[in-house]
């Protein structure tokens, strides 16, 4: 009996092989002939200004951070949902406390404006 993760490895290998094959084939067929103007960074025809390695708004970072913390929350939801029928009311109250605490953090972030754009 084959372990059940093997088909996924095969799938990954096939997908990788497919993409590498396609990229190489198109590289061979397309024959890149770069010129200075062609390989210039595209900024709607204008000469590029500065570099794209720019700073960007802290908003993105803040949202990502909140995402991480709620991702853990979601990760706890999954096993809980799996055994919920066994846990019954006990499990419900347990999770209610958990979500309540996290929810207060969510409300704080909301009130402070961390979720506004």
């Amino acid at each position, binding site marked *: 009996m084959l*372990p059940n993760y093997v088909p996924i490895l095969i799938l990954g290998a096939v997908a990788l092989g497919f993409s590498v094959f396609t990229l190489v084939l198109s590289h061979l067929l397309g024959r890149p002939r770069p010129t200075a103007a062609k390989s210039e960074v595209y900024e709607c025809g204008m000469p590029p200004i500065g570099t794209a390695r720019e700073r960007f708004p*802290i908003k993105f970072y*803040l949202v990502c951070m*909140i995402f991480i*913390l709620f991702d853990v929350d979601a*990760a706890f939801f999954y096993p809980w949902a799996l*055994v919920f029928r066994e846990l019954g009311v006990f499990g419900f109250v347990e999770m209610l406390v958990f979500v309540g605490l996290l929810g207060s953090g969510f409300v704080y972030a909301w009130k*402070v404006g961390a979720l506004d754009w």
Partner: protein
Amino acid sequence: MTLDAILFYVFAAAALGSALVVVGQRHPTYSAFALIVTLCSLSAVFGLLGSPFIAVLQVVVYAGAIMVLFLFVLMLLRVTREERPAGGGWALKATAIGLGAVLAAQVGSVLATVARGPGAPGFNASTVSVARLLFSPAYLYVFEATSILILAALVGAVALAKRDL
């Protein structure tokens, strides 16, 4: 060797190799990419050790969330290569590696005295059994304490970043 063992060594080698890249690389962004590879290989190793649940969780939380944050911060701060040679002079470097080796030897000696014998036969942690244990009364307080930890982290991080809003 069984298929499990072969794959284990393949992914272990990938994890070690990419971990070396994480440490050896001067450019933090490439370090981050290498660390993603390490984390995914480790996830495969977890799966091969019979804990599919932890394996998937590793990808969800570590590779899928924490590393995205790292990449974001690296982009946000416009990080470049470390300009100075790593760790100062060779004496310092040697000390660092020596200290690392000592620490590793310590941990290793502890592991060597503890871990003996093969794994429990036929061990395969089904997700249900892990979930059952996680939500058993034994871990009730830990579980609720976790939410306080997340709450504290949330408030702390928002408060730290807030002044830039």
